[in-house]
């Protein structure tokens, strides 16, 4: 459980996942932020107003998945690195997971990396599709991983030591 080991449960995740119909329509953000803490940069970062205004700064983010186009601006601004964009329409066999990444070296497009789940365990392989970095990202890069469709809700990190 999150409070005991830092890993969100299926029940936690069920509260924040977009509906399957929405996932079937393209990229969408998922805020895996489960605690009321004094923090609201995600709300201020979303130009499409897809994140509901916070009545008070401790509120948890609520993403209107219909308004969200998966642009990823919030992914870069979230200090908790808790927001991910998932695109299940990438191909028949693969989904894209766009995740925040603050380690060096950065991978290169085409690299095969080991795909890691929320408990830190390797669950398979992923292919790096794109790396968004640069000065305006201020150190929080966004890495696009192509993962097998059935892992799109599992993979939330990656390790490069297994680069081939």
């Amino acid at each position: 459980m999150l409070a005991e080991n830092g890993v969100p449960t299926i029940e936690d995740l069920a509260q924040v996942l977009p509906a399957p119909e929405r996932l079937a329509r393209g990229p969408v953000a998922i805020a895996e932020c489960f605690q009321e803490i004094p923090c609201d940069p995600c709300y201020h970062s979303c130009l499409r107003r897809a994140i509901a205004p916070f009545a008070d700064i401790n509120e948890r983010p609520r993403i209107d998945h219909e308004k969200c186009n998966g642009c990823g601006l919030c992914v870069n601004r979230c200090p908790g690195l808790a927001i991910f964009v998932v695109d299940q329409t990438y191909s028949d066999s693969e989904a894209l997971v766009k995740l925040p990444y603050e380690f060096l070296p950065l991978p290169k497009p085409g690299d095969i990396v080991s795909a890691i789940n929320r408990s830190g365990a390797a669950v398979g392989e992923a292919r790096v599709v794109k790396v968004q970095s640069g000065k305006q990202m201020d150190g929080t890069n966004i890495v696009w991983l192509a993962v097998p469709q059935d892992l799109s809700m599992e993979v939330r990190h990656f390790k490069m030591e297994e680069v081939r």
Partner: protein
Amino acid sequence: MIACEICVIGGGPAGLMAALHAASLGASVVIIDRNDYLGGQLIKQTHRFFGSKEQRASERGVNISRELSFAVEEEENIKVLTAATALGYYKDGVVTVEKDERFLKIKPQKIIVATGGAEKTLPFPNNDLPGVYGAGAVQTLVNVYGVKPGQRVLMVGAGNIGVIVSYQLLQAGVEVAGIVEAAPRIGAYWVHAAKVVRAGVPIYTRHTIKGAWGEKEVEGATTVELDDQWRPIPGTEKDFDVDVICLSVGLSPLTEILWQAGCAMKYVPELSGYVPLRNVDMETSVPGIYIAGDAGGIEEASAAMMEGALAGLSAARALGYSASDFNSRRANILRELENLRSGPVGEKIRKGLKKVTLIERQEFRVLPLSSNF
């Protein structure tokens, strides 16, 4: 003897904001810090901060510190003395300071104490072996001097500091074998915890360190599980092959100067130690001595900055300075503070502050503007 209107002791986020706000009303300020740089703890915080837009949330602590220090250097009403340690406070209102092996005396009309906190330690066998560090020391080594403390670390304490320092160690290429936490729950924000866990660092709640081993330096550590009464459960020992043990078991407010000045102090566990009584404007029981930031109770940089701003405004106001927007600025700061502390994680702080704030309800009291304005 240096005469000044306001002396701010401590150049962390609280002290810097105090100086900026006091100077913005026109007061002359001397800010002293024992480090040879301004910024306090912020200089080591390479992660993005929580908080609201007004407190620069999502910015990295180190960048906030750079901006504030720059603003302070630019402000002509502020004189900065770094590598200067406040040694004592005397009855006649003189603050003594050591700088460059010289003894300085400062006679301010108002004092703002923003000295921050000191790390706590933990007793266990062999905790004196080289390789046992405080989390602050590890952070200074890694993020200020670019030195790795070792190859593989066991972190003790899963509060925000333990978890964030673990993350920063990973970023520096140091392995973190695990984080042990005696409490049944993770104290850090869960989003921080989740990011170190997926990066491969297990967090063991209800666990503590039983001892360190090694001949001349740390060669490993043994942990043990705890029962509901926090007693070690025999047979649950685990060995960790590590060369660094990093203690992150809390901070306590640095308050020597307040004791010397005779401020009324109270032990408040929720604020992590002995802290001064204060009113809503951050003035202690000794008129003219104000408090801000971790020195008044361990909290966060966001709150420290707002408290500093409030103390700075109050001290300058008490000297007769003001501005047409004084009341609205003050009200905004009070509202920010209330907002920050309003959620479930602020409950402890709210409880602690109730015990030391002389006017209980933090109403947005409107001060009469001084006649000369």
